[in-house]
């Protein structure tokens, strides 16, 4: 037997009242990064591509260059702001594509069952076994440099993560009788799946997406670092780190540290927010009869 209802409420209400400060900070930081990227032309003190070889490797705090300049004399702050655009948009593309693909495959596998499930699950296992970064490098080798190829390749690489989560959630949710109730009411399988099953799976999907976003950002930054992502002079954070390698040896670490810190903080915050969404779902889902 269970405890009485008010007892459970009294217990579950307590953790919700405490609002985690870290979470609010993380969300605020992400919002700030997004705004900074969107409003880069307004906020950036300089053009991100203007070189000034005389003023190269100026330390942070130099007049006019708050975060200093890199080895080509470009303003680090401006490049950071402009870089935020690609650094955020490209992983967003990866997440959107992989979520779409993974959801479709996961739902199909869970709802069709039988050989369709077996085939889709094996296919996902194969992709799963292949490092997505390698996949992305392969794509660049075949289709040439640029962002489109690695974004698509990473999306394919991430699909099994999403697909597996969706499949297992759909199976778990599908065992509940309300989906059968809708079938008895005469609703077709696609309608039941998309209109009732998917929304009940969506919160978990959101948490999973937030986590993949962090991975995608790091993977894309790694690609850029290897010179396989964004084509110069356009910049994202990964490429900024790559270009700053020489500067580190010249005793000017800031041009690498600043974008590095940006990557680190953004990924950390995304993971924190994603994790919280997941935990919050766990709580609401437990509230049952």
């Amino acid at each position: 037997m269970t405890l009485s209802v008010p007892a459970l409420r009294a217990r579950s209400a307590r953790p919700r009242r405490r609002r985690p400060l870290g979470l609010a900070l993380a969300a605020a930081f992400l919002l700030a990064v997004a705004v900074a990227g969107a409003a880069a032309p307004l906020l950036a003190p300089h053009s991100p591509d203007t070189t000034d070889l005389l003023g190269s490797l100026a330390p942070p705090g130099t007049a006019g260059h708050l975060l200093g300049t890199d080895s080509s004399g470009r303003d680090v702050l401006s490049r950071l702001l402009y870089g935020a655009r690609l650094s955020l948009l490209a992983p967003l593309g990866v997440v959107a594509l992989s979520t779409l693909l993974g959801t479709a495959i996961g739902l199909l596998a869970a709802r069709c069952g039988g050989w369709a499930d077996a085939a889709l699950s094996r296919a996902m296992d194969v992709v799963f076994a292949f490092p997505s970064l390698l996949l992305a490098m392969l794509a660049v080798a075949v289709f040439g440099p640029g962002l489109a190829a690695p974004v698509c390749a990473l999306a394919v690489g991430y699909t099994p993560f999403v697909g597996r989560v969706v499949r297992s959630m759909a199976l778990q949710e599908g065992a509940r009788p309300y989906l059968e109730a809708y079938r008895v009411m005469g609703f077709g399988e696609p309608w039941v799946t998309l209109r009732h099953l998917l929304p009940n799976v969506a919160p978990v999907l959101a948490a999973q997406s937030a986590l993949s976003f962090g991975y995608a950002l790091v993977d894309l930054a790694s690609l850029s670092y290897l010179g396989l992502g964004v084509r110069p002079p356009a910049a994202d954070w990964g490429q900024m780190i790559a270009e700053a390698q020489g500067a580190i040896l010249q005793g000017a670490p800031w041009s690498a540290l600043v974008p590095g810190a940006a990557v680190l903080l953004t990924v950390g915050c995304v993971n924190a927010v994603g994790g919280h969404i997941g935990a919050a779902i766990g709580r609401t889902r437990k509230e049952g009869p």
Partner: protein
Amino acid sequence: MTALAIEGLGLTVGAGAVPLLDGVGVRVGAGETVGLVGESGSGKSLTARSALGMLPRGARATGRVTVAGTDVLAAGRRELRELRRTRVSMVFQDPRAAVNPVRRVGDYLTEGLRARGVPARAATERALDLLAQVGLRDPRGALRRYPHEFSGGMLQRVVIAGALATEPALLLADEPTTALDVTTQAEVVGLLKELQKAHGTGMLFVTHDLDLAAAICDRVYVMYAGRIVEEAPGAALFGAPAHPYTRALLEASPSVRGERAAVKAVRGRPRSLAEAPGGCAFRDRCPLAGDDCARAVPGTRRHGASLAACLRAGEEPR
């Protein structure tokens, strides 16, 4: 000797001191079968668990719970562990949830004995003996098998064997047959009664099924909203229910035998103590309720063979 004595047990939980139980008194003598009957929210399981010292997290208890001479509420961690290991056992509703699915049945049965320092060989012998007692056809083979290889009824027998391994003074059976088929229920209940008689164990049988409790128990306590509302000998409960709630329960359940009578629905739904009205908790659903029922929680009074907490015990409606 008394196997279990609960006196004036009150339980509140959380910062708001949400009440769960109020003034609950239950006594189980050695070798006696006592039923604890109630609907959801009545607190019957909480009451049974208090005998193991298993209270909800953050709960504050008042009153006394004594098991075979040990004061459970005052006992320390070590004492509680000792108590659970040797003097009280529990059989749960779902045997599959009560047994570790990846351990063999033999491990499950000997674990407790080994922890008490019984040598391996002797523990195995004892397990074999117990399995034979609960009616498994091939005890030696059963020791090597895994829980999933048993049906629900057979597994519940294994759990009962485990519960009796330490010759406890008190057996807590929390809806032990609810998850089983009717014919299996009859077997398991028969087995429980038989073993209990043979070992002189006191049994507290917790159930939502009034008929089942009345059929097998020497005495039955009926709980509603965290309080005991009636105590009566099992047989008397059917003949002359004293409390309007007991009567309502009986009239609400259809019956297999006798004339086919209409069921009489009780209005509203069962309450927990926190939701219940002041005074008599049943008064908002009771056909006999009057203004005086709101004044205070009615005291216990004798009516026929029963003790009922009602101002109008035994009165006919209207």
